[in-house]
């Protein structure tokens, strides 16, 4: 069974590109366009990893991250934060809130794929 990745971003074009990349790597994908939807999708689809944008309507990425980490059911869930704001304080904040990795937009597709793989398949 392929690993499942939830892509959360309010920019449709970014979602399309990430979706393509994840499918190419053989992952199943689920999409959400805002924070609330992301939480619902996590509950419904139980993904293995979330690619989480920060600047979103209806709950930003930090809040979503915090809420996911607060729920013990999602202990194994991996979270990668994606943001256009690349300042160190924001990186630190994301990691402090429990994200496993933090990527700054625009990112190199190779790096994103590598990061996702590393988190989902540590053995590889």
């Amino acid at each position, binding site marked *: 069974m392929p690993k499942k990745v939830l892509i959360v971003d309010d920019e449709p074009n970014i979602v399309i590109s990430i979706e393509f990349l994840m499918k190419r790597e053989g992952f199943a994908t689920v999409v959400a*366009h805002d924070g609330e939807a992301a939480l619902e999708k996590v509950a419904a689809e139980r993904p293995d990893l979330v690619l989480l944008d920060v600047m979103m309507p209806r709950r930003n990425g930090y809040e979503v991250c915090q809420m996911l980490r607060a729920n013990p059911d999602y202990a194994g869930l991996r979270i990668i934060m994606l943001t256009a704001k690349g*300042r160190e304080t924001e990186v630190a904040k994301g990691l402090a809130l429990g994200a496993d990795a933090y990527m*700054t937009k*625009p990112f190199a597709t190779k790096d994103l794929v590598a990061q996702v793989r590393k988190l989902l398949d540590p053995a590889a």
Partner: protein
Amino acid sequence: MLLQLPVIIGAAFVYLAVLFAIAYYGDKRADAGRSIISHPLVYSLSLGVYCTTWTFYGSVGRAAASGIGFLPVYLGPTLVAALWGTIMLKMLRVSKTYRITSIADLIGSRYGKSQLLAGLVSLIAVIGVVPYIALQLKAIANSFSILTAYPETLARAEPASGMIFTDSGFLITLMLAAFTIVFGTRHLDATERHEGMVAAVAFESVVKLVAFSAVGVFVTWGIYDGFDDIFRRASEVPALFALMTSRDTAATYGSWTALTLLSMSAVMFLPRQFQITVVENVDENHLRRAIWMFPAYLLAINIFVLPIAFGGLIEFGKQGTDTDMFVLTLPMSRDQQWLALLAFVGGLSAGTGMIIVETIALSTMVCNDLVMPLLLRLRMQALERRSDLTWLLLGIRRFSIVSILLLGYLYFRLAGEAYALVSIGLISFSAVAQFAPAIIGGLYWKGATRRGAVAGLMAGFIVWTYTLLLPSFARSGWLPQEFLTQGVFGIELLRPQQLFGLAGLDAITHALFWSMACNIGALIGFSLLGREDAREATQAELFVDVFKHGSGVAGPSFWRGSAQVGDLITLVGRFLGVERARRAFERYAARRGNIGVDQLRADADLVHFTETQLAGAIGSASARVMVASVVKEEALGLDEVMNILDEASQVRAYSQQLEQKSRELEQATTELRAANERLTDLDRLKDDFMSSVTHELRTPLTSIRAFSEILVDNPEMEEDQRQEFLSIITKETVRLTRLVNQVLDMAKLESGRTDWRDERTDLREVIEQAVAATSQLFKDRGAAIELVLPDELPGVMIDGDRFVQVLVNLLGNAVKFVNPGSGHVKVSLTRDDADIVVEVADNGPGILAEDQPKIFEKFRQGGDSLTGKPQGTGLGLPISRQIVEHYGGRLWVESAPEREPGARFIFRLPSSLIALEEEAA
């Protein structure tokens, strides 16, 4: 019958007893530290000591003779009071600072602590004021005899004959002497203040005002039927009708002006006025309020003068009655005995108040500036041996009081009959006016010297004696009448009342002119002639610049020498009493930094302190002599004093500069802090802006980079997908370009570097262009657009392209938010009050009130609260607003989604933009 001798004497005694009681109570309270006179009203009332029997009885007499001619004597003080905040305050400050306790001390001290000058002033004051005291005694005695002669009233009072002890005037003189001694010389005080006496004097002012007004009310409404009745009846008598205007001659106006000037100086420099205004002043603020309270008192006490005068003239006719006594005789003629008694008490209060204060003031001068200097000079050796001289000082004061009062009595008995009350008073006023040049000059002109002051005073006094005093003696028969008519030695040019042939003026104006001309001329002339010595220069500096130097202790030090602290304490002890001296030095030591008396150093400051203490008790000139006797003084040369003065003024100037600099520095600091805060604010704003810009830039870049990499990495991709991805890249690139353009646009707008190409523009064309530019968007969304444009519209001077941008923005926003398929957008252009209003209304979801301000913020996009991510940069509305505001217009949104759907974006341009030729057409 009420008005019998025992009743009248009894009333007088009871009244004096009440005065004693008030004065006693006032002193007790003062000793207990709870002053009853520390109130501006009490202060102003006590200034009412200016109103003597001259006012109480004499004004009516003067009014009966000359109509309104009695008034300048009260108008002068009213006018000059307006200047008290400047002149009197300076006198007050000088006197408090240097412990000056009399007008003689003030003048002597200013001109180098000159004993000669102080003595001269005292002499002039005594000679000049004794007739004035006599006037009071005369008025009281007159009123007494008129009252006792009731009902055979209305006769001119004759001085009592027979035994001297049955003479009411003499009895009153003795009683007043006792009163003055008890409350004026109870103890020696360095400040010479007498609170009990002031309280009594203030009370007397109330009594005389009440009594006079009571008579006035009785005459006006009791005897007659109001003011108009009195004046109507009087106008029927030709002689009285003539009094209602004054003679329109130069002499009349000249004498009016002269009296005004005379009273101005009198109200400040009469010894009793100086005593009350300056010496007895408790608080400088009281002076400030007396500026209007005192004139108000003068006005109040004068209201009924004319009605009483005319009432009396109608009642008794002009002949055969003493017009000065109408205040008494009018109530008596109508058998109002109580009222007459009240009037008598009122007159008594006016007289006693003046006598008491005047005598205290004069006795201080006589003691400090005439007797003490003589004693110190003649019997120095004998005085040296006495350790306590307070008894001597008090003895001299008491003796002076009795002597002055007896002198007044003597003058009254010998010369008083020849003149009306007012004329005697004016002679005194003229004498006191001689002090004015020396004082005013001394307070404001540093160049006034002792020689100038002595010369001026002497000249003025001699002329006064010759033109006023001697003629009054001639009138009284002490000098041959020829003195008046033919002058000295028969030289007509020297006739005392037409000096050098100056005729046509009344005696007072004539005397005032010549005495002032000589006085001022001599003061200025001699001052400019001779150089001042060091001590004078010092005093001139200290007096003229008293407000700069502050308290004397802090002033520059003009003393150099050596002394023993013990000697100084002993010296003060001899004049103030050992105990009081010890306490004064202890207080001084405490002020110098909480040290004991034995630790004091006999420096310049301590010597100055000693001298000031002594000055309060024996006058500044004598104090200087006494201090000089116990310290070894090195004389300072004039040059040295000048140097010190220069230094002092340099130090002062320097410290002013310093102050100025530190103020500037403080201001600069404040400004810097504010600027810094603004910068920090701007910085934060810029930071937010930059952060937002980067975010907005990174978003399309992310897509572009991702798809480019995908396309590169997956060459075998299907053609359809490849095409889709390429078109996304294109769209994101366009978005990026638009964003970059708008950010640059915004930056230019904000920094004011935008290039505005204003030309005559038809807004209808602008709207049509914008609609054409967005027509594809409308088509895509299936939205309808409606235009409502007027047929005629003046051209406006704007940059048309910019407004196309604005409208494209508004239309773009509108179409973005309407529901696909059912959208409707309406653009209308109207004129409201000549202003041009453009409105873009849509039928979309609308904008909540709390979101409305936000949408005009940069990078705040509408729809944050909606599910869908809006398309746009978040800069459109802020840019549009900037453009509209650049033209003095306004852009805003109106929407109330809870009531009806839709939002209306409206901008309004002021009519001033309308092109000129359009307006003309």
